[in-house]
């Protein structure tokens, strides 16, 4: 008998498979910051099981937990029973939206993306003083966070590409809108179309993105399939920079934070480290790294909907950086940079950068 809920249709077996062992509590960033079992992966599965058993309904009372998950997949990575909690949550969110119970921040974001080109409802992006929509080999796609919240990081990355004589152009980009799929809504077709058109118009064969979320959206979502069909490759800037030599180094103690979207979701762990080792011989790993990396707390919409907890999660990650005496924290995601930078306390003296931004700064200093 088909269920009225998508999450049950697709994932009933998995929800039942949750053995309640609670091992997810060891790695869930939301639980780590709040110590509230209701917000942990196990808590979410127990709630959904009760929904499936007809004991409770999907309603507003579940918003606080079903919409407070960074989808970091640490739970899935560590679940002995193989329960894919993030996918189940995303499906349940769609059911919640259908049932009329959605977190106002995401409902708002869905509406914003009908009228604006970006999730922040800003009218104008920062001016990076470069021509857009030129014919070029590569398109550099910045992403909303890079355009509207971390302009310094973006500016530095573009400077670096210029130094490396990469032939690229910016475009009049609009939000890839991939994030909507994670919070209960569909991707905006009109935005996807606009991006595809803008990209194809440049004749570029490669799209380089600063945001691992955008690159995943372009690579995996059917709305962007035309890119692949037309022979356009999409890579994240960390992959693009693999072949380059930079000719600069630092003796500072550097560590690397694996963004969930690049790490656990794409399996890209070594490329960023290869680049960092070229420029920072004094490289140290934090306690939880690679597929065990602790989520910074920004993802899955949590920074927008539950900012306080999101920043508390970022603080836990910074504690790990402090524990290894890092002076510089590098990462490859503007969302991580943003959340970690906001969470940093004044007395903590380390600096947080995107890797390309840091390389560019070293090059600036070398001149």
């Amino acid at each position, binding site marked *: 008998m088909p269920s009225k809920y998508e999450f049950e249709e697709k994932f009933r077996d998995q929800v039942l498979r949750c053995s309640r*062992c*609670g091992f997810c509590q060891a790695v869930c960033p939301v639980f780590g910051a709040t110590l509230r079992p*209701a917000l942990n992966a196990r808590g979410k599965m127990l709630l959904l099981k009760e929904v499936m058993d007809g004991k409770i309904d999907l309603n507003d009372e579940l918003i606080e937990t079903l919409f407070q998950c960074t989808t970091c997949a640490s739970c899935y990575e560590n679940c002995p029973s193989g329960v894919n909690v993030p996918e189940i949550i995303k499906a349940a969110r769609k059911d919640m939206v259908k049932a009329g119970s959605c977190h106002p921040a995401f409902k708002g974001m869905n509406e914003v993306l009908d009228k604006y080109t970006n999730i922040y409802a800003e009218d104008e992006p920062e001016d990076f003083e470069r021509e857009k929509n030129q014919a070029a080999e590569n398109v550099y796609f910045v992403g909303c966070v890079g355009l509207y919240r971390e302009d310094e990081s973006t500016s530095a990355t573009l400077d670096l590409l210029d130094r490396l004589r990469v032939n690229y152009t910016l475009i009049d980009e609009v939000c890839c809108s991939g994030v909507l799929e994670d919070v209960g809504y569909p991707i905006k077709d009109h935005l996807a179309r606009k991006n595809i058109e803008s990209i194809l118009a440049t004749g570029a064969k490669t799209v380089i993105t600063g945001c691992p979320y955008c690159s995943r959206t372009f690579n995996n979502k059917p709305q962007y399939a035309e890119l692949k069909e037309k022979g356009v490759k999409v890579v994240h800037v960390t992959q693009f920079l693999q072949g380059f030599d930079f000719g600069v180094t630092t003796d500072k103690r550097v560590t690397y934070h694996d963004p969930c979207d690049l790490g656990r979701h794409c399996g890209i762990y070594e490329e960023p480290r290869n680049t960092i080792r070229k420029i920072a011989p004094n490289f140290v790993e934090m306690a939880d790294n690679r597929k065990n990396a602790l989520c910074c707390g920004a993802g899955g919409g949590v920074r927008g909907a539950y900012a306080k907890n999101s920043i508390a999660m970022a603080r836990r990650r910074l504690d790990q950086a402090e524990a290894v005496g890092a002076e510089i924290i590098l990462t490859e995601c503007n969302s991580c940079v943003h959340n970690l930078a906001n969470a940093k306390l004044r007395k903590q003296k380390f600096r947080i950068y995107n890797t390309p931004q840091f390389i560019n700064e070293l090059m600036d200093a070398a001149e």
Partner: protein
Amino acid sequence: MDEKLKQDLIQIVGEANVTDNLIDRVSFSYDASEHSHRPEGGVWAESAEQVSEIMKLATRNKMPVIPRGAGTGLSGMAVPIEGGIILDLNRMNRILKISIEDRLAVVQPGVVYLDLEKALAPYGFFFPPDPASGKVSTLGGNVATNAGGLKGAKYGTTRDYVLGLQIVLPDGRIMRTGSKAMKSVSGYDLTRLFVGSEGTLGIVTEITFKINPKPTATSTALATFDNLEDAGNAINQIMHSGIIPSALEILGRETLSAINQNTDLNLPEVDAMLLAETDGYTREETDYQLGKVMAIFHENNAHEVRQAETEKDVEDLWAARKSAYAVLARIENNFVLEDVTVPMTRITALLNGIHAISQRHRIRIATFGHAGDGNLHPQILYNGYDPEQVKRMEAASADLFKLAIDLGGTLTGEHGIGISKAPFMSLEHDPVAMDVMRSLKKMFDPNNILNPGKMGLEV
């Protein structure tokens, strides 16, 4: 939750630490067992004083209070079976003191076991019990259940390491037990009474643990057997080797198969596999010890005996063992995990008996466990939505307990009685003992508000 009660609780712990939200009540209904029941709400306490005030309030209102750590108990001791409020102790999570010279650590109950290990590691010390749930379980919970673990045979269980406790009694009075001295026989041993009391006599708000220097070398081996009999005999005979391995675990066929589905280990799927570890301070020493153990395996028809070579192999093997029960959960949508324990000489009989029960009731039972101290974990796997299978599971469970008692063993080596084994208490304990236990409970908790309905103590 009753509005006045809620306000009174808010007065004690603050608004942020009181909840009667649906999502909290649902998640507080469960632990890692198959039992569940809604509480009225929950509170998070941050000090012994707050816990004391909460218990005074609960006494006035005759309201059940159920202390909770990580909620990973396997017998239902944290499930609020009679309603009431959950007292979540996870925010009391500081390590208060580590003194290597005094060989002790003082901690709050919400500290996760692994976090204590991480804090002791730089000193070359450890806290031996090593429960499989150590990544998430809290020390307060470990004390409440007298948690065992993989190192039980050589190093004992939690109770062997508790020097003293701070307790809040059901009526709110606060007291201390034990001593910071390494040994004491001053007055009745109240510490031992509370360890393993499953949160029914008092709430632990501070623990002083004895800690050990950590052996720096280990050697690990695995051995496969074509039948349970041989494996059982090998376990029996270990004592004759003169060596007590620091860990000796058994994995049955079903368990091995499930592990293989979850990892790349590619373990041989045989009737029984033994994993052994010896520890010491030099590889010569541990290899020598392991050699003696491996000889016993060979003498008992082990098919293959192999020492693990790399550190990664060793880590993977033990990680696989620790997640065995949750991995097995992939097979059916429900399971019951037992932990019957028998004297070493009866292990083979227990292994065979489990097999017979599985056949008799036509229900799958996977087996793994701490062979080293006779503590097996038969895991009954069944479809919880099929009433027939549920009946067969219950029958099989009952037979397992009877078997263990008949073999001179105990209902539970380390998981506790909770709700799961409460109906079987009188199989193991004579009426006088049960009477004494009930009297103790009544003396500590005359209103029966602290974690009521557990351990078969209600008449």
